[in-house]
């Protein structure tokens, strides 16, 4: 490895590193504004100046490639003076409004001016004035604060794939704006707020809410989609003020989607904070005692066969396990279902329902085939990875079913199951390409597994991959893209009711009105008629489930309890409690424990530790199960239509959020992104 001398200390660095990166290896901190690890190099803020031997002027370390034998100095008076000079220029036009700026306390400019700023300004002319720009409901702009680092432009163009931001004018007149100030049309747009090193782009919903040092920070897991992005929840007392990304190279790098970030105001609205009972068509407040006793009285009226339970999208493993244990051991009912619609699953081995190639693996792939999925909406962060792979390796991406604009070019193959038949028989050109590629990825979306065709598509593509040796330990090309945070975990815990011949047993019974008592565990995406069913809803928000319920039991939302989640890759992650449930609401497993106690039946667990042990045991059981062959399946001719998804309205929390409603309104106005097609 080549060597570089930094402050008289010799260190080794990797080929292709910049001087700045080498300095960091040597433990020297270099101030910077425009440089960012995940974006291209711009070199326009000049804050990272260092001294290089034989160079008459200081050099911008972020843009200078490190070479063998370079002698760099970062602590000389020349460097200090140069950086102070740069800082003085940056501050010349920067307003002194830190006391009213939302970035205060977490501002790069503020922090660095502590070391390189002068005590007073020599600039006596009037400061630059820039109009506020409109960038949509999420991003608040204060462009006089902008120091033109262009991080936001590079993010929008490179990572989000939405080249909508740009710098107009030049010199003193340079301004960052979207084209004619339309709102930024990306599901990742709010990440520019984190990227902005100053207070030019701040969060609109969080404006003037709190100072960073007042907030309690909890590192936890997101549940808005199945990706399981790592987040930090900042709360002030009970209120969750904001959600920020946390770095996890394997999952979300350091981005999160707008839904993850801004659904949090939904945690304050539409909350269920007391048990409710429906009397004469009207919901009445009541106590836990009365509600639970009524619930047990009703349960005793029905046979176990008539009792069914549905697990919602945001449920953690504790919820699912205690629910299942309550149903199987106490109610003696097997009618549990985690799906909300007829989506084919094959839970015989674990690879059948997870994302086997791993999110990280997308970058290594050389061919991606999307089947009935729009990853941009179904798993925004995963889509950003696909885009990253496309930008890095120019990989080819094909789609069966028309996904629309995915922020990268994607060849549309058609939308019929007969294309899959062609692929199997080898008459489609894709067939050969998949066989030739080293690390292909096939992503099956929910839309492709929906209904009768699901079984054919899944099993035949699986056997196709198996024949071509793509289901190996080191590379598994079979991927199922779940949309719900609870889905993989629920399948691991066997919260489904299927039989060998009928994958949709539960739904057939449901629509034949065989169930008389339905227990909804946070399940709000329901599509059945109430009729004469008795419905219990247990969850955090007054949404579709609560609307039809006869008994409502208030539960905790995802930020209000410790919980385990398994993301779409099958990775077990732990979420932590940032806040506490409002009013009389309780954590869900406690409710089931109480129910068993009232019924005088012993539950499997007494405390949360025991529950967690049980969960881990049954999840491990599942992980070790594999190598089960399936029989041949019959061809089903059907169209693969990617179900339109109401991106900002997928779960009760985002439906309760005001910010999400605003985003939804705006996204309806603009159908296309990037290069606008209809105007």
């Amino acid at each position, binding site marked *: 490895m080549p060597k570089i001398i930094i402050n008289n200390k010799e260190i080794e660095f990797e080929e292709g590193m910049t001087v700045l990166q080498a300095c960091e290896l040597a433990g020297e901190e270099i101030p910077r504004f425009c440089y960012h690890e995940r974006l291209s190099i711009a070199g326009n803020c000049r804050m990272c100046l260092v001294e290089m031997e034989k160079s008459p002027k200081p050099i911008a370390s972020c843009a200078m490639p490190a070479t063998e034998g370079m002698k760099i100095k970062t602590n000389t008076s020349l460097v200090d003076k140069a950086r102070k000079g740069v800082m003085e220029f940056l501050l010349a036009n920067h307003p002194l409004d830190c006391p009213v700026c939302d970035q205060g306390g977490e501002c790069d400019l503020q922090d660095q001016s502590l070391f390189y700023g002068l005590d007073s300004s020599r600039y006596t002319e009037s400061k630059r004035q820039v109009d506020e720009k409109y960038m949509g409901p999420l991003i608040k702009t204060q462009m006089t604060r902008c120091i033109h680092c262009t991080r936001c432009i590079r993010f929008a163009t490179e990572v989000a794939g939405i*080249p909508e931001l*740009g*710098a*107009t*004018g030049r010199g003193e007149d340079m301004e960052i704006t979207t084209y*004619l100030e339309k709102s930024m049309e990306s599901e990742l747009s709010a990440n520019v707020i984190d990227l902005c090193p100053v207070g030019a782009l701040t969060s609109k919903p969080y404006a003037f809410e709190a100072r960073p040092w007042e907030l309690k920070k909890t590192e936890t897991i997101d549940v808005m989609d199945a990706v399981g992005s790592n987040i930090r929840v900042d709360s002030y007392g009970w209120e969750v003020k904001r959600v920020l990304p946390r770095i996890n190279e394997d999952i979300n790098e350091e981005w999160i989607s707008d839904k993850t970030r801004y659904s949090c105001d939904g945690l304050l609205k539409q909350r269920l904070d007391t048990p409710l009972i429906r009397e004469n068509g009207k919901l009445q407040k009541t106590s836990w005692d009365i509600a639970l006793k009524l619930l047990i009285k009703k349960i005793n009226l029905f046979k176990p066969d008539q009792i069914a339970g549905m697990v919602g999208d945001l449920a953690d493993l504790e919820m699912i396990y205690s629910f299942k244990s309550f149903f199987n051991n106490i109610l003696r009912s097997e009618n549990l279902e985690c799906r909300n619609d007829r989506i084919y699953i094959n839970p015989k081995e674990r690879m059948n329902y997870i994302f086997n190639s791993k999110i990280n693996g997308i970058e290594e792939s050389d061919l991606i085939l999307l089947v009935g999925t729009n990853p941009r909406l179904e798993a925004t962060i995963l889509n950003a990875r696909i885009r990253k792979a496309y930008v890095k390796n120019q990989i080819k991406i094909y789609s069966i079913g028309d996904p629309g604009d995915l922020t990268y070019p994607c060849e549309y193959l058609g939308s019929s199951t007969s294309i899959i038949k062609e692929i199997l028989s080898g008459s489609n050109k894709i067939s050969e390409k998949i066989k030739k590629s080293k690390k292909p990825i096939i992503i099956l979306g929910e839309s492709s597994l929906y209904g009768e065709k699901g079984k054919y598509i899944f099993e035949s593509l699986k056997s196709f991959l198996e024949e071509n040796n793509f289901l190996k330990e080191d590379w598994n090309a079979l991927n199922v893209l779940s949309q719900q945070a609870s889905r993989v975990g629920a399948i691991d815990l066997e919260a489904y009711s299927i039989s060998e011949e009928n994958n949709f047993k539960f739904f057939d019974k449901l629509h034949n009105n065989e169930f008389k008592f339905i227990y909804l565990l946070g399940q709000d995406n329901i599509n059945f008629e109430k009729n004469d069913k008795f419905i219990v809803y247990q969850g955090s928000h007054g949404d579709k489930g609560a609307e039809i319920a006869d008994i409502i039991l208030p539960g905790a939302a995802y930020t209000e309890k410790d919980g385990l989640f398994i993301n779409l890759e099958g990775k077990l992650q732990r979420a932590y409690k940032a806040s506490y449930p409002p009013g009389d609401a309780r954590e869900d497993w406690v409710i089931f424990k109480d129910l068993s106690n009232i019924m005088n039946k012993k539950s499997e667990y007494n405390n949360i530790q025991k529950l967690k042990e049980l969960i881990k045991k049954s999840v491990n059981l599942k992980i070790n199960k594999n190598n089960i062959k399936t029989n041949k399946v019959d061809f089903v001719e059907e169209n693969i239509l990617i179900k339109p998804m109401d991106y900002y309205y997928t779960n009760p929390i985002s439906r309760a959020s005001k910010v999400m409603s605003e985003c939804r309104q705006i996204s309806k106005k603009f159908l296309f992104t990037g*290069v*606008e097609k209809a105007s």
Partner: protein
Amino acid sequence: MSVKKISKTQPELFEFTQDNLKKVRKEIDKYPKDRKASAVIALLYLVQNQNDNWIPLVAIKYVANLLNMPYIKVFEVATFYSMFNLTPVGKYFVQVCTTTPCMIRGANKLTTICKNLISKNQNELSENKLCSWMEVECLGACVNAPMMQINQDYFEDLDENKTKEIFETILNDQFPKPGSAKNRKNNAPENGKTTLLEVKNA
């Protein structure tokens, strides 16, 4: 500096003429297929030539679609270069040089005439909407100062009468003869050659 304010009145349609489309093809062909965007400046120039010296927003979209670029990227280019106008400047766009050599030779007289004959302020259309004027920095013809540029042509060695004459011509929608008002050839000495007398074409 040019006018970077976006005009409030915008035409609804812009399309290149057949002639210009041929030129567009030629410009695009200069670059590799996946580097089409390189032709953006040339295309914006053609837009300006065709559209009375200014670029409307529809033309920005039109060029962006031709070159497969995001709108904002074309917009960035159009706002960056001072030779692109985003507001109507008239069919005859007068740029008067007021940098030191021209100023010493009486550029201020020229701007006064502009104020009297064309419009009171810079970047304002004349009454008949045919022309506008603005002060610019050095246009590189100091030897023939004072001078001004109308569209693509230089008018040099100007005095008050000659300037008035030129302005009257353009206000009548006719293009005056460019070049030196004193009939100098390029920037040859004003009173005839003094050196290289024996060389014929010097």
